[in-house]
């Protein structure tokens, strides 16, 4: 169909949908004369099925696509998700699964001999790499008979150390997402790879004499050495071609700040193991940056308290860190901080200036801070910092203005932190540019008609993500040849002549650098399910190597890099790289840079000006844009695991919302779930309001990534049912308000509309009771019920048993039923350290992947039926406008005297001799009595048929060791019983007979394994050598609701804070009740 002259060159912008929607018979009448003409000229096909086909009418194309479905734009809107899956899977099956298992001929080898290492039922693990916003994280991918089924962290990889974030866990779902684009699309129709190559070649040949003038490449952040080499090669071949970059949520201001401070781009990385005092200023570096998993691990190592004393580093050095947060909106860092100063964004910048001045990093001026509280706070922080020169750390990055970041660099330098806690390196990003400027230049050139061919690589979606003021879509229409390569048919695809499906990272060969520069290698676990192509393969077309696979391309590059030019040496080195998942010793070395003279002074002036302006307009609401904590910049919008993952702190799912503090909402007269019209710079957007305690006055947040109009095959229309794989969220498109001059903050006008938009929150569901805010009532009750026990390091050092004295543990024999002796064999238990849980939620996604936990969809979340076996409870404490926030992961408690077990009429939930509260799905009839009687409400019920038991893709993804539950049965956390059994089998094989205990600390649950801060441990509590037993012996250990005599096997280590005595005293003087609470109740 590529040679079809009838459609070539037609503008296809936005038309494919309309054409596809027309049905046969409704369109233009058949032009018989034209058909006759075509037949005579033999331009059309030689054999034909109908006149329609000969005429190549859109109606026939349409019919053909309906008959052999390839993308879902062809299905009528509003088709139910279930319906789609059924059709899609049926069509896959009908197509002989060619779409799934398309393999190069030379690789098809029957199992005449069993492949080495592949043993049915036993997984293999491969070291590979997943990237997020360009940066690599080393992972181990579990493979069952060639199907990737789970992602684990790579313990040898510096960005992972064995843990992962939620994005990495959820990558598995994206791999099997049937919404991914499944064919090459040209002008809205099926295209071919060779057609693509020849068209590109023709275009390149035409441009060759001009040095590639008019050829443009647009990517996100690129750190891949291979890709960089390829692009450089192309740029050498076509010197006038340009490479543009656009990472919507990338480090725009960080880059500008580095340029100002050091005169060159640098990458800043942190060493949290050395940081005694951390001041986090409007920063999410700990939990959202490319190095977050590593950072959290290092941070937690310094935050743990054991035996009443800081656990410190493995070598026994160093005390517990102290964290100060200065911010406008609650961050995950704040939930593990000791002090928090809540200020509006402009005042935060003022605080940076004041801090710089106090530490001599900026020239002194008049008083900058607005109130006495900030001043007192500043003094205490300054004192603390001065006492910890060289071991303190000021975090202030992307969300601070470049001026304020310059000051942060200056402060770190003044405190002697550079080289210790702060490390500057060459940029990890290849050939770094200012993305905003780069995109702006591209749009300007497109508008000026200077762009003939635009290649958008690696799922960039500028039509959706570009700042609204650039008018990217309009400019794009002026480009002669528009090529997009991505995982999904998205907003941008609709404007493109070519869409090439991207291979998922688990299907690709490739490489990328981690946050510290370490080169990590991607190796495929499976052939591309939908025939996707990697970025290198696309770029190879531009180097006239259209049929070179990504394996050869990557290897070709590394042949020039790895030691030993002899092939044999290379093979050994390459094998080592693949085994490790990374190239050793590629971490970028520190560089010496210093803040340029005068930079701080200029920055101070800028901040003062900004502050004066902000103070003049006190009531103006500032709208902050932030990447979404679960779907990031929108790239994960069709990943339903991430959509349904409750966002840390707000606990919203499936939507974003305009998040406001209670005071601001009250002043504006706004209620929860009310819709408002936002106006930024004349651009309007409707959004629903969510009220969250702990936001600065007159500050609102809207996260990016929602309000997609198209991802994959699905539009945003409502569906009643959600299957195992993706779906687009609803929500509100923040990009519509985001402009190139105000990427992270903009003044906003809020106008009430008075409509209502339901938001699916997993905690309290925001029912309002007459006493006011349900959140607050819940928090007060949680406090009284001592759900979260907490203390301070100071109190603990006076009396290590302070938590033990508070406990209300019933006596050993307070039960009617006979006691079971668990002292023989294993006894499983878990402990969770509340001091270090940041609420990042990677444990939840890990649990979901490991245990085949279904996604239920927004409607079911609204109905209160989310299925997560593990949830993270969030409680506020104290002042509604500026509370403390606590995280508490809640898996099944595996109570020794489990209330669920006695009430089950059919004995479907029973206790194992190792203390597991087992759930027998086959036996369950679904009375839900167990769930009612569970004081922790950890049981989950399949109210409807949530699990996808029909789709072949889902079947490939499921963990074969875990039952897929049917409707009508109860399920819950099993402590990953399949892993326990696997470990038992292993130890039975390995050990002497009769000596079948699982070796110490060799067994991890999925949540434990994924946890970046190592807040969860699991193991045999009968054996003192297991880490869990040591945790449980800790004086901080307590059981949740243990006064009920449930004897939970999951226990918690009380949350320990390390407040600055000066600030604590000041807070006490200000608020007597707070003082009483701290000194009496919890210290």
């Amino acid at each position, binding site marked *: 169909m590529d040679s079809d002259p009838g459609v070539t060159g037609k503008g296809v912008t936005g038309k494919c949908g309309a054409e596809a929607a027309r049905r046969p018979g409704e369109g233009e009448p058949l032009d018989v004369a034209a058909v006759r003409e075509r037949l005579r000229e033999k331009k059309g096909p030689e054999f034909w099925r109908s006149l329609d086909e000969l005429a190549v009418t859109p109606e026939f194309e349409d019919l053909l696509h309906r008959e052999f479905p390839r993308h879902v734009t062809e299905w009528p809107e509003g088709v139910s998700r279930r319906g789609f899956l059924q059709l899609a899977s049926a069509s896959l099956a009908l197509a002989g699964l060619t779409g799934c298992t398309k393999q190069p001929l030379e690789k098809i080898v029957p199992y005449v001999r069993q492949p080495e290492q592949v043993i049915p039922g036993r997984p293999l693990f491969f070291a590979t790499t997943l990237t997020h916003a360009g940066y690599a994280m080393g992972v181990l991918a579990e493979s069952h008979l060639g199907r990737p089924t789970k992602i684990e962290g790579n313990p040898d990889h510096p960005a992972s150390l064995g843990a992962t974030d939620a994005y990495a866990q959820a990558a598995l779902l994206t791999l099997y997402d049937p919404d991914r684009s499944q064919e090459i699309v040209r002008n809205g129709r099926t295209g071919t790879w060779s057609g693509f190559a020849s068209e590109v070649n023709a275009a390149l040949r035409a441009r060759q004499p001009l040095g590639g003038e008019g050829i443009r490449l647009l990517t996100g952040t690129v750190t891949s050495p291979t890709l960089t080499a390829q692009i450089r090669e192309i740029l050498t071949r076509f010197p006038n071609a340009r490479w543009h970059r656009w990472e919507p949520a990338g480090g725009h201001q960080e880059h500008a700040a580095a340029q100002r401070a050091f005169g060159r781009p640098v990458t800043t990385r942190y060493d949290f193991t050395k940081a005694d005092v951390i001041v986090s200023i409007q920063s999410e570096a700990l939990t959202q940056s490319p190095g977050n998993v590593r950072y959290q691990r290092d941070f937690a190592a310094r935050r743990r308290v054991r035996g009443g004393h800081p656990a410190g580093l493995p070598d026994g050095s160093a005390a517990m860190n102290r964290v100060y947060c200065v911010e406008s909106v609650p961050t995950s860092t704040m939930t593990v901080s000791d002090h928090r100063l809540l200020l509006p964004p402009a005042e935060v910048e003022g605080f940076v200036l004041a801090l710089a001045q106090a530490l001599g990093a900026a020239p002194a001026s008049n008083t900058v801070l607005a109130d006495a509280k900030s001043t007192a706070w500043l003094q205490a922080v300054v004192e603390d910092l001065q006492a910890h020169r060289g071991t303190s750390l000021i975090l202030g990055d992307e969300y601070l203005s470049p001026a304020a970041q310059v000051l942060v660099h200056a402060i770190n330098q003044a405190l002697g932190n550079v080289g210790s806690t702060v490390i500057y390196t060459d940029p990890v990003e290849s050939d770094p540019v200012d993305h905003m400027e780069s995109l702006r230049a591209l749009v300007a050139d497109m508008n000026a008609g200077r762009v003939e061919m635009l290649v958008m690589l690696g799922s960039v979606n500028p039509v959706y993500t570009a700042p609204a003021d650039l008018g990217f879509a309009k400019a794009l229409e002026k480009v002669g040849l528009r090529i997009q390569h991505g995982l999904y048919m998205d907003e941008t695809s609709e404007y493109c002549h070519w869409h090439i499906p991207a291979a998922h990272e688990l299907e690709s060969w490739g490489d990328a650098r981690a946050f510290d520069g370490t080169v990590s290698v991607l190796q495929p676990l499976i052939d591309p399910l939908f025939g996707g192509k990697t970025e290198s393969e696309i770029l190879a077309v531009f180097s006239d190597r259209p049929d070179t696979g990504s394996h050869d391309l990557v290897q070709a590059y590394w042949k020039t890099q790895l030691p030993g030019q002899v092939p044999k040496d290379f093979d050994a080195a390459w094998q080592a790289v693949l085994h490790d998942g990374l190239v050793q010793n590629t971490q970028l070395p520190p560089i010496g840079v210093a803040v340029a003279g005068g930079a701080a002074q200029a920055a101070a002036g800028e901040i003062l000006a900004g502050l004066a302006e902000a103070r003049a307009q006190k009531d103006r609401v500032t709208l902050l844009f932030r990447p979404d904590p679960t779907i990031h910049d929108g790239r994960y919008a069709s990943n339903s695991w991430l959509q349904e993952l409750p966002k840390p702190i707000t606990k919203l799912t499936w939507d974003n919302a305009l998040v406001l503090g209670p005071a601001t909402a009250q002043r504006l007269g706004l209620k929860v779930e009310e819709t408002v019209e936002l106006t930024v710079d004349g651009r309007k957007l409707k959004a629903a309001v969510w009220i969250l305690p702990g936001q600065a006055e007159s500050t609102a947040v809207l996260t990016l990534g929602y309000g997609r109009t198209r991802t994959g095959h699905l539009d945003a229309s409502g569906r009643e049912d959600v299957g195992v794989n993706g779906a687009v969220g609803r929500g509100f498109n923040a990009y519509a308000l985001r402009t190139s001059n105000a990427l992270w903050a903009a003044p906003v006008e809020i106008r009430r509309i008075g409509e209502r938009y339901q938001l699916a929150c997993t*905690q*309290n*569901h925001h*029912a309002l*009771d*007459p*006493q006011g805010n*349900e959140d607050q*009532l*819940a*928090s007060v*009750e*949680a406090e*009284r*019920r001592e*759900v979260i026990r907490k203390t301070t390091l100071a109190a603990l050092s006076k009396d290590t048993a302070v938590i033990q004295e508070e406990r209300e543990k019933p006596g050993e024999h307070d039960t009617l039923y006979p006691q079971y002796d668990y002292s023989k064999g294993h006894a499983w238990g878990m402990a969770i350290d509340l001091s270090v849980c940041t609420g990042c939620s990677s444990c939840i996604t890990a649990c979901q992947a490991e245990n085949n936990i279904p996604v239920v969809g927004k409607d*079911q979340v609204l*109905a*209160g*039926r989310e299925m997560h076996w593990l949830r993270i*409870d*969030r*409680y506020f404490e104290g002042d509604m406008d500026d509370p403390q926030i606590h995280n*508490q992961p*809640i898996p099944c408690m595996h109570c020794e005297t489990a*209330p669920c077990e*006695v*009430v*089950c*009429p*059919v*004995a479907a939930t029973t206790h194992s001799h190792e203390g597991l509260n087992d759930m027998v799905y086959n*036996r*369950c*009839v*679904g*009375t*839900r*009595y167990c*769930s*009612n*009687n569970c*004081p*922790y*409400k950890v*049981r*989950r*019920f*399949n*109210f*409807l*048929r949530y699990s996808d038991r029909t789709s072949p893709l889902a079947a490939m993804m499921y963990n074969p060791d875990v039952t897929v539950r*049917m*409707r*009508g*049965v*109860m399920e819950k956390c099993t402590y990953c019983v399949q892993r326990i059994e696997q470990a038992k089998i292993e130890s039975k094989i390995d050990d002497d007979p009769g000596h079948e205990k699982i070796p110490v600390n060799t067994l991890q649950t999925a949540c434990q394994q994924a946890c970046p801060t190592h807040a969860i441990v699991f193991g045999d509590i009968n054996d003192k050598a297991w880490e869990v037993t040591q945790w449980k012996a800790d004086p901080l250990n307590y059981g*949740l*609701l243990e006064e*009920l005599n449930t004897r939970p096997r999951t226990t918690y280590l009380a949350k320990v804070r390390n407040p600055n005595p000066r600030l604590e005293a000041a807070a006490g003087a200000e608020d007597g009740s707070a003082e009483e609470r701290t000194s009496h109740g919890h210290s």
Partner: protein
Amino acid sequence: MATLEKPYKPPVVAPGHDTATVTDKISSVVLQRTPKWWFIGFGISFLLLMGFLFGVTWLLLKGVGIWGVNQPVGWGFAIINFVWWIGIGHAGTLISAILLLLRQEWRTSINRFAEAMTLFAVACAGMYPVLHLGRPWLAYWLFPYPNTMGMWPNFRSPLVWDVFAVSTYATVSALFWYVGLIPDLATLRDRSKNRFWQIVYGFGSMGWRGSAAHWHNYETAYLLLAGLATPLVISVHTVVSFDFAIGIIPGWHATIFPPYFVAGAIYAGFAMVLLLSIPLRVAFGLQDFITMRHLQNMAKVMLATGLIVLYGYIMEFFFAWYSGNHVEQFTFWSRINGPYRWHWYGLIFCNGVAPQVLWLRRFRTSPFWLFLVALIVSVGMWLERFVIVVTSLSRDFLPSSWGMYAGTKWDWMIYVGTIGLFLSLLFLFIRFLPMISIFEMRTIVPGTTGEPSLGGEYTEVPR
């Protein structure tokens, strides 16, 4: 010992009736042509029943997720309705068994349809525990039967106790009702003009000829069954209350539940008997048999049990306070102040306040007011179960797990549908079976018993 004047009792049957007229009157209801209003009433009931079948079909196809149940409120309408219907059934057994043993002759005119009501209410109730299961096709696993799985049910679970309690109750109630019917079926057999009905009633009467031996056996069986049914009145709702009382949830875990549930059941049951008898006596002109005395007596029973229930409500709050248990206290605070407070206020009005008018004779003797109060009490008893089931679950131990519950259209469709089932069965019953026990009525017609015949005009004499 001074001779005590026997207290005056208004007659159970209005004067002027003899055995023949009683038989004529009652059997004519069955043997006459079907009145037009019967078709209308049955039609409406049957329509509701169809709604029920539709709802149940959808339920079986889709799963209990079509209802409003969720986390943390795992039980909703199904359990509320189950307890409500079971409670309604209690009056029938109480009237037929306990009042029989206590030789309360006034029970005779209402016991037959009260028993029928019991049976139909238990039928409605009995479906809910099955329908509310996630996998209802496996409901038989709750029975202890020998099986290849080698599994017994979990005898510690109150739901298993429920299985025994409810199935025993249903069996004994059915037997009791049927045994009581046998002599009357014989009467109908003898009076039927139609061969078909002669055969049908003939089968039903099991060859009853009214011989002395028959009567002897009959009396023995009936008394035995009454003896069997008597403890059931107490046990069934006690066991049902264990579903909650055994639970650990604040608002459920209370020792007061068994007596307060039993009282509540009798309360609801008498309300339902009133609701049915007041229109029936008018429709069939049975004012002579179901007299004002009956209505008054039932009103008095309602008042008494209503007060017990009210006492239960007060004690729940008292013990929540007295326990010093904060979670328990919060649950009850939440009943008055929480999101379900209107349900609680409604319950207190319906069950606690409204029935107090029955202290006044004026209201007790007015069928209209009695009907209204009975209706209010029925609603109130439903609300009581709603408050117990839903509010307790919606605000339990961990504040993070609090949640809200509301019934969906399917919940309502199935609830209203069981009312349709109940009414359909009732309409069939009054059409095809004698709704008042003919032979027992004959025994209390003046002159046939020890009851003195007062003669003269029937008047209400206050005492």
